[in-house]
Structures are given as structure tokens and as C-alpha cells.
């Protein structure tokens, strides 16, 4: 498989064209939005917890961005549903990257990890879980 076919493989294009978990949750229990300063791509994430206030019962996103950032966020929503906020807050990025399953240059890596970063920011705001490294030091005022 050449690089081109590897990156734009069917599953990526499918998630891009038919994103899972696309939309908003009104009165979400946790939410955040973030941008990739390199390209201006945006993702907003909404989380609803179950009755225990800890299990992620539903998660949705809205965004504008490249196939990689949108497909990765789409995959992320499938991956985290039913898991606990604490667990997801420390979800290793490789777990998502394995799912995305394509070779990524450093710039594209930022695209693939945008949604995960924003989800962790949302959990941080709602639950005080730790911020991911690349968002550490972001002033609270800048996190909307």
C-alpha cells in the first residue's frame, strides 16, 4: 500500500463523510471547544454522564476540519461511550492513534489528537480531571 492509500483509506473517508456522534447535546454535563492554532480547525465536544455522574453515556461533537481531525474525533466518540470520565481523562493517545491506524506526520498528528484534547478539556472543566500535556497552562479564560 502506498502512503496515499494508507492515509486516505476507506475507514477514514467513511468516518469523515458519515461522522458518528455528530451534533450537539443541549445542557451537556461537560463541554469544551478548541482550535488547532496551526490551521484554525475547530472541534466542540459535548458529554452527557449517566445517573452515576461518572459514566459517559453520550458524547457528540461539532467541528470543521480535515478528514483526519474529523474522522479521528468521530472514532473517539465511539471509543469512549460507556467508559468512566476518570478513565477517559487519562486515555493514552496511542489507543486512539491505533484505531485511526494510519501513518501520521507531526503536523497531522496534531489534527488526529485535536478531538481527544478537547474532550479531556471538557472533562477537566466538569470534573477537575488533569489536562492533557498539550493543553496544560492554557488559561481558563481561553478555554470556552
Amino acid at each position, binding site marked *: 500500500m502506498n*502512503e496515499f492509500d494508507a*492515509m*486516505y483509506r476507506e475507514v477514514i473517508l467513511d468516518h469523515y463523510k458519515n461522522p458518528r456522534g455528530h451534533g450537539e447535546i443541549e445542557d451537556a454535563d461537560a463541554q469544551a471547544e478548541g482550535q488547532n492554532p496551526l*490551521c*484554525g*480547525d475547530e472541534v466542540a465536544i459535548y458529554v452527557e454522564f449517566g445517573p452515576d455522574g461518572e459514566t459517559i453515556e453520550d458524547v457528540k461533537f461539532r467541528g470543521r476540519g480535515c*478528514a483526519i481531525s*474529523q474522522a479521528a474525533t468521530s472514532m473517539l466518540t465511539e471509543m469512549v461511550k460507556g467508559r468512566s470520565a476518570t478513565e477517559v481523562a487519562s486515555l493514552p493517545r496511542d489507543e486512539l492513534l491505533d484505531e485511526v491506524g494510519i501513518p501520521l506526520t507531526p503536523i497531522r498528528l496534531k489534527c488526529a489528537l485535536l478531538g481527544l484534547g478537547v474532550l479531556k478539556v471538557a472533562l477537566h472543566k466538569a470534573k477537575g480531571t488533569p489536562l492533557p500535556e498539550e493543553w496544560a497552562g492554557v488559561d481558563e479564560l481561553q478555554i470556552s
Partner: protein
Amino acid sequence: MAVSSGVKLDARALRADFPILARPMGGKPLAYLDSSNSSQKPRQVMDAEREYYETSYANVHRALYELGEKATAGYEGARETVRAFLNAETTREIVFTRGATEALNLVAYAWGLDNLGPGDLVVATELEHHSNFVPWQFIAGRTGAEFAVVPANEHGELELEALDELAARGTVKVVAVGYVNNSLGTVNPVERIAGWAREQGAITVVDACQAAPHRRIDVQALGADFVAFTGHKMCAPTGIGVLWGRRELFERMSPFGLGGDMIRSVSVEKTTWNELPQKFEAGTPPFAQAVGLAAAIDYLEAAGFEAIEAHERDLLEYTLGRLGELPQVKVWGPPAERRGGIVSFDVAGVHPHDVAQILAYDGVAVRAGHHCTQPLMTRLGVPATTRASFYLYTLPEEIDRFVEGLHRVTKTFA
């Protein structure tokens, strides 16, 4: 606009001067369509810099031995080359900086902090590169002046009718405007804007980064007060830029960078400033890079600015014609007669990153992003665009490969 001197550019022959263009990228021949981001360098420029290091190198303006004199002569000779290129009155008006960003920050800080205050209006445009936008927004905030922008229409051209309305909002003190916009290639009517600014008693600060590589700039005819450009987009090394400013203004301004070389005398009680232009060149300047810039100007002059402009105009028209094949492609920006060699576009349903990535697999280098013009992107209602840009070494077959790549993009995302 392009006045054909009848001299045609032989782009194919010129390419032999740019060794990097012969190197494959990812196993494919390189089609470099990202020159407005940064241009490639001809051997003549690299050779001039190497020769300077090999024969004339010591620190400038300090050493009393022969090498120091030769180094200073090289640096000051470069200043004269830049003066002639800009048709400035004197080399005292030519300040070397590390790039356009530093040059524009210099004006915003050194002129702005002393001349702006409440009731004043600082005007930039919606087309500005962040480097002629953010410093003014910031210094306006610092001084209590108001910050406003000249809006652009959906073709990325300035709505000059708005100028007089803006003037009602305060005393216009500064108009910051780009000569040629870097995202869409819009050529702004800078002389007209500078004329308007003068009527308001305001200064005009021109960002000429995308003009200097492609067209002759006559600062006296332009009627502006400051003109900044950067070397690396015009065949010169990185780390060198120029700020031209009117002597009267430079003389009355406080310095920006403080330290060595920019002083006349320093004591515990009081420090006085050096003469122009050293007053604005604190520290050891990028003087070898300045020699490289002078070699780049010589190189471009030899190719001929009229010929360069005509060549890029041909490529632009060819590209716009070929993009017509692709109904999914929407080209932003004004008609060809009012733009430089830049084509920014949108492929329906495909993000610019993906467009650029797929083109890169074919060896075609373009830029995808907001191009440091987020206010303009907001105006157009997109987060980013894909941009192809041309220079004197660009060939029509590179455009063909670019268009073929776009066919592959639309097929992939169909």
C-alpha cells in the same frame, strides 16, 4: 501593472540556478508552488553569501583591521542596493531588520507608543497579514487608541468607500495596509490609500512582502511613510528584512531595540542615540544575510521585474483557465488583472489540509491554512484555504501536475 518590456523570461533556463528544484520530493519530481510562503534560492545568492564569509568576514562597524572594513563595505553596499531598488532618497532611510515582522513591530512600537492615545484611530485592513495587524491592535490597546479595519468584500478587495465613515470615529493616525495580499493575491491601491491617509494627517505603513519579490517598488511614488518587506520570499536568505521610513519620521522617533551599535554615548546618567540608520539597528545585524539580499536583488533585476510580472501573469491566467475544468473548485480573490501570482481556492467538501496532503503525495507543494490572515478567512467564511503561488522559476507543466492532483483529490472524496 505589467508593462511588457518585450523581454521574456526563460524560466526553464533560470531553474538551473535553483539546485533544490531538481531534487525529488517523496520520490516524485518537485513542483514547488509555495513561493509566496518562502521562495527557493539561486546559487548566485548562496555563492555571494559564502564568498563574503570566505573573504570579507568580521563584525561590522567595529573592527579597525582590513577584514572588518571589507565586511562593513559589503554590508553598506547591500544597503545601497536596497536603496536603489526602492528608489529611496538616502541610505539613512534603509533599516535592516531580521524580517518583515520585526520591521512592522518596530514601527508599531517605536512610532506608535509615542504618537497614539485616546481619541486616535488606528486603521488596518481585513486583508492584513497578522504581522501588520496584531502589532497595531496591540499598540492601540496599550495607548488607548481605537482600532478599526477597512472591510473587504467577498472577492477579497478592500471597500474603500468605508474609509470616510471610519474617519468619523476618531482622529486617524495610522493606516496599515498590505501592497499585495498573501492569501488571495489582491493588489491594493496603495497610492490611493496613502493619499487618503495623508489628507487625514495619518501615516501609511505598507507591508510589501508579497510585492517586493515580483515588482519594482518606488517608495517616493507610493506616498507611504513606512514600507517593510522580508528577504526570504525574494530569493534572499532567511533572517533579513528591510524597513524603509521617511527620514523626518525616523529622526523624530524613539528607538525600538536597545543595546549595542544603536547608541552614540552611554553613561549612567544618560544615553544618546546613534545617527540613522544605526539608531534602529541594535546589536550585531544580520549583515551576511544583507549581502545575500543584495545578491538576490541583483539576480531579480537581471531577470527583469517586468519579465517576472509578465511570466507570473501568464501562469495565473493559465491556472485560472485550467481550474475551470473542475466544477468542485471555487477560486477566491479578485480578477487576474488585480492580483499577483497567487491562487487560493476551496474544493467542495474537502478540507485544505487534505487537498495539500494529497497533492504532496504527487510531489506538488502548496500551502493549506489561514496564511496568517484569520480576519480575512473569517470574512470569506472559511477556516482555511489551499493556496498555490508562483515565481520566476515556475513552469506551466507544474500547473498541469497540480491540476491533475486536484482531479485525484475530487475522485478520492467523491
